[in-house]
């Protein structure tokens, strides 16, 4: 096993990885920006190195600084956590060139899965279900009509160069197509200087469902079941759970086969998450892959008993899945995670500042992952996640009851948090019934505003 690992991250995930290392007897090195000098990931590491000023680009995203820190601390490996450099293939390449093991997939795989269209094609070749759509760009209305017929309405037109909703149109009927095609084209050309469009099947009220995979460096792949992540606001997940009420044992097994095959074909390594949209008929469509540990990995850990971060380290050290995992993986109970963000629970404005009181809930089936503490500081430079509250019950009803109890006993003063928002969501009848899709938060917030 590695002798010494540098954790190239901050906040709760840095502490999570550091603790996993310590438990495995690996010496730990934290890096930090000047804004994080008093952070717990610094306090609880064996060594800590300041790598730059607060701005992300100057510190946590500063590849030479991170690599230099790794070199002067003489580490064997770097764990990137999530976000930051975790899906930066160039960084993984520099690690390789510097003879430092990057805990994650090889840069080639990260690069492949990081480009949406390439990832889509790779998954398609591997016979994973992808969102039907045009093969590349559609140039004419005739093309568009033909593709739409094949795919079936509704479809969505998207700007190839685009993002942020511009150059995007949902087409529900054939009659609308010419007009909307022109509109999207004009908008895209105007916004991005490139009017090229492509077309995808449009999923109404989809669920966001993702599968956790682990692949070793010897070609073995397993899935650790799914996570339901439909409770999100502007693509920011708020609540995740596992298992999903919508995934039947049969579908779960089918997806497991499909994913094991496709991940093996792609040559995937280490932990990864394959994200899907689920339509009203419970069909899944690949959207993208995250080639790293996820924020929401603890719900999978709760129901499987597998420590995903330790698994990552052991895979990176060359171990085989059969050495790492129990003989039989099965789902035990139900787990839910709330992301506790330092932000206003209604306005969603980030709330940086000095924490003046911090009391976390505990007890049976309650897990808190946090690097915050009483009198800690939430710096204004980074994301607003200050804690993850994870509960594990025998079933969803018990998990919900535990979460309500735990949220009620989670006390933070000095900064605003999303705790009241979570409490309100857990009161919502549709949420409690499990009847929701990715549009839930929008409707929920609209109703609250009216009320």
């Amino acid at each position, binding site marked *: 096993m590695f002798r010494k690992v540098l954790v190239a991250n901050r906040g709760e995930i840095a502490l999570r990885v550091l603790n996993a290392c310590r438990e495995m007897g690996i010496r730990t090195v*934290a890096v930090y920006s*000047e804004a994080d*000098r*008093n952070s*717990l990931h*610094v*306090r*609880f*590491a*064996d*060594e*800590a*190195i*300041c*790598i*730059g*000023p607060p701005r992300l680009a100057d*510190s946590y995203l500063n590849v*030479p*600084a991170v*690599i*230099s*820190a790794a*070199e*002067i*601390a*003489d580490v064997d490996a770097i764990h990137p956590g999530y976000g930051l450099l975790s899906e930066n293939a160039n960084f993984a390449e*520099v690690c390789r060139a*510097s003879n430092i093991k990057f805990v994650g997939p090889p840069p080639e795989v990260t690069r492949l899965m990081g480009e949406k269209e390439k990832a889509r094609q790779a998954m398609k070749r591997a016979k994973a279900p992808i969102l039907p759509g045009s093969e590349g760009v559609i140039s004419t209305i005739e093309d568009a009509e033909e593709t739409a017929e094949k795919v079936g309405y509704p479809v969505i037109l998207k700007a190839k160069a685009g993002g942020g909703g511009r150059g995007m149109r949902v087409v529900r009927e054939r009659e609308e197509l010419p007009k909307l095609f022109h509109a999207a084209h004009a908008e895209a050309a105007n916004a991005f200087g490139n009017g090229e469009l492509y077309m995808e099947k449009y999923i109404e009220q989809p669920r966001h469902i993702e599968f956790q995979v682990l692949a070793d460096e010897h070609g073995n792949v397993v899935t650790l079941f799914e996570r339901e992540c439909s409770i999100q606001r502007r693509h920011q997940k708020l609540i995740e759970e596992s298992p999903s009420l919508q995934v039947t044992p049969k579908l779960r097994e089918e997806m497991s086969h499909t994913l094991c095959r496709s991940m093996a074909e792609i040559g995937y390594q280490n932990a990864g998450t394959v994200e899907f949209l689920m339509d009203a008929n419970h069909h899944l469509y690949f959207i993208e892959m995250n080639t790293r540990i996820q924020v929401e990995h603890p719900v999978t850990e709760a129901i499987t008993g597998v420590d995903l971060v330790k698994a990552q380290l052991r895979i990176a050290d060359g171990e085989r899945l059969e050495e790492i995992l129990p003989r039989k993986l099965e789902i035990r109970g139900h787990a839910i995670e709330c992301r506790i963000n330092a932000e206003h629970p209604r306005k969603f404005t980030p709330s940086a500042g000095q924490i*003046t*009181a911090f009391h976390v809930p505990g007890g049976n089936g309650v897990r808190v992952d946090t690097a915050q*503490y*009483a*009198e*800690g500081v939430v710096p204004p430079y980074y994301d607003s996640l200050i804690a993850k509250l994870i509960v594990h019950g025998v079933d969803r009803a018990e998990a919900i009851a535990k979460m309500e109890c735990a949220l009620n006993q989670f006390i933070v003063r000095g900064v605003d948090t999303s705790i009241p928002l979570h409490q309100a969501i857990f009161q919502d009848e549709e949420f409690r019934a499990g009847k929701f899709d990715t549009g839930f938060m929008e409707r929920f917030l609209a109703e609250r505003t009216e009320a």
Partner: protein
Amino acid sequence: MKPQDIEELRQLIEFLKAHQVAEFDLDRGDVKIRLKFQEAAHSSPGLADLARALGSVPTALGQAPSATASAAAASPTAVPAEDLDAGLHFVQSPMVGTFYASPSPGAASFVSSGDYVEKGQVICIIEAMKLMNEIESDTAGEIVRCLVTNGQPIEFGQRLFAIRPA
């Protein structure tokens, strides 16, 4: 006690009182001092304790015996300026890396204590990712002390030289 002793004591007491000192020990054996100020207003126990326990002892670069051991003392969180530092300017490292005092092994150091340096003059090298980065003095003055040693690992912001500005 002699009258002047008593007078000195009186002055001391008044002085301490004037400064809201609540407790004061002194022991000239090998210099012990202990001072406690009156607590402000109402004594809120507060979590300053926790902040101190958790925050103010960062495990700086190499707290344990290792190649990087010597950096901690010079870390920018160290105790605020001693009297000796008064009026000095510190050149801080703009990057993480390894400190070299001379352009190549065996060569003479760029600068030594007592040297006068110009602003912009190269005073050392920080190696980062195999690149030798020449570090220039950001002020003109006399090198009073070099705070790190050849080959030492350096973190961002670490003090390298103390300079008495000209």
